[in-house]
């Protein structure tokens, strides 16, 4: 059973489109995250939710909007996609408030390519 699953794994879309990436965790964790990994492999946190509440919102264009319907799900919606949005997006989860001192478990990543 996959602990953190995100779909789709690959997403190719045209500039200007709106797309969503879904994430679900079955670990019972309180905290979920979205990360962006650029072509140089640098990992940058975008958002963090704890029990469905937004706790970290880094400097991310407001075209990116996370949605957490319950603490097991954290979806990422992106409006008006731009070429620079092309990257791998990772969902992750960890236990405890703000993730506590525990490690994060990651989904397999979604490779988004904007053409």
């Amino acid at each position, binding site marked *: 059973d996959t602990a953190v699953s995100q779909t789709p794994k690959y997403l190719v879309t045209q500039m200007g489109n709106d797309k969503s990436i879904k994430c679900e965790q079955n670990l019972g964790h309180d905290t979920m995250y979205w990360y962006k990994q650029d072509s*140089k*492999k*640098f*990992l940058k*946190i975008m958002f963090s939710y704890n029990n469905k509440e937004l706790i*970290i919102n880094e400097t991310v264009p407001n075209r990116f909007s996370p949605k957490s319907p319950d603490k097991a799900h954290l979806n990422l919606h992106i409006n008006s996609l731009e070429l620079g949005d092309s990257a*791998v997006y*990772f969902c*992750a989860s960890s236990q405890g*408030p*703000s*993730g*506590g*001192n*525990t*490690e*994060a*478990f*990651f*989904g*397999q*990543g979604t*490779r988004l390519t904007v053409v």
Partner: protein
Amino acid sequence: AQKVTQAQTEISVVEKEDVTLDCVYETRDTTYYLFWYKQPPSGELVFLIRRNSFDEQNEISGRYSWNFQKSTSSFNFTITASQVVDSAVYFCALKRSNYQLIWGAGTKLIIKP
């Protein structure tokens, strides 16, 4: 400043050699946590180890070992008798007392057969 430095961008060794990946961190926090993650070519991020700032014991897990030294703010990772399957990008990360997670830039490890 709070940061994690992995000075080695890329390391290439021949199989069966030992290799050490360096991680140096900066933080003013007295309580913090350090992590290593592996990202193989398939792309997923795999958790390897967590260490808290009060536990300076080194850890060994099979061919993997970690050397945590607070005096030098380092948390280095050694792979003994490397194998081709160890080829991956390895990330070191620091979680501060306010739970902010700071990532290093990663070290790409290439193990040649």
